[in-house]
């Protein structure tokens, strides 16, 4: 699909949610890059943060071409205007929790990005996929060892984050016939299929371990209550002090004009 007539409003919302999720992923990787269990995790976290912020720059560039305001994107938004996955609203309290948070969110964001079938994303998504290979391999490698060492912590984090990440992906009722973005030709993989792919990946990863992946609930999110723009249920949002960091509020006076 090409964008001779611009993207639909739903497509802009979809890319905005992916971009904001990557922005918050960069923030969460940054928060953990100096307190991981060892230097190698810190270095990987710093690299991941850098990749995410670089990807956000590219996605914001495309959003600006679609008429999304520069100032609004970068520095004039309230916390409830960020469309990040609800998994990232709060900083994880412990390392196993953080790995589950980052793993589910980064993989879901990648699957949604990879589902886009539009000329504006050709090439760019392939390059982003090269970055993501290292993120997702790091997470899965860590989850494999944590599943042996701390299965209860991994299972508790899955209970918390799985419904939130499924809300980010979209309702199970959005299948090949009913997903509006597929119908419009903007994506080529409906939410229902992405949900299953995401779930199956973790079910296979934890097979043979003491970690039980909670059942995939087709009623979560409730399509009636689902916010299509912010890809979640409810009005939760990231903390105001994190938004201040994202917008560089405390260092505004040093901005290079």
């Amino acid at each position, binding site marked *: 699909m090409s964008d001779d007539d611009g993207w639909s409003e739903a497509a802009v919302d979809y890319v905005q949610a992916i971009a904001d999720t990557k922005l918050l992923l960069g923030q969460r990787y940054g928060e953990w890059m100096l307190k991981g269990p060892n230097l190698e995790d810190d*270095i990987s976290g710093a690299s991941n943060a850098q990749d995410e912020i670089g990807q956000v720059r590219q996605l914001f560039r495309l959003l600006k071409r679609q008429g999304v305001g520069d100032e609004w994107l970068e520095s004039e938004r309230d916390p409830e205007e960020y469309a990040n996955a609800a998994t990232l609203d709060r900083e994880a309290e412990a390392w196993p929790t953080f790995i589950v948070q980052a793993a589910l969110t980064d993989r879901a964001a990648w699957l949604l990005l990879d589902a886009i079938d539009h000329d504006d994303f050709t090439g760019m998504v392939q390059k982003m996929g090269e970055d993501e290979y290292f993120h997702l391999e790091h997470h899965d490698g860590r989850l494999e060892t944590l599943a042996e060492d701390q299965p209860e912590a991994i299972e508790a984090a899955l209970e918390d984050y799985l419904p939130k990440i499924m809300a980010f992906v979209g309702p199970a009722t959005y299948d090949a016939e009913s997903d509006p973005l597929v119908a419009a030709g903007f994506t080529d993989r409906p939410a229902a299929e992405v949900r299953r792919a995401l779930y199956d990946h973790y079910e296979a990863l934890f097979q043979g371990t003491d970690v039980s992946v909670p059942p995939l609930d087709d009623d979560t999110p409730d399509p009636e209550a689902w916010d299509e723009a912010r890809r979640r249920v409810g009005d939760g949002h990231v903390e105001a002090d994190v938004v201040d960091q994202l917008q560089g509020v405390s260092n505004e006076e040093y901005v290079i004009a």
Partner: protein
Amino acid sequence: MKYHVFTRINAGDDLMHVGTVQADSDRLARIYAHRTYDEEDWDFIGVVREENLIEVEEGPIAGGRTA
């Protein structure tokens, strides 16, 4: 576990030892090595578990005498 990281810049070059990483699995070691030593456009980067290195030992050879 400790892994040694080996690289080369050009195909056909000898491998260089560039450092080590600590990892709980081979899968993690590959990622850590790439992330930690990705300062060059390597033609090859690989890891070897320290326990898999074969030590080259020196020792006296027996002369074949019998007491």
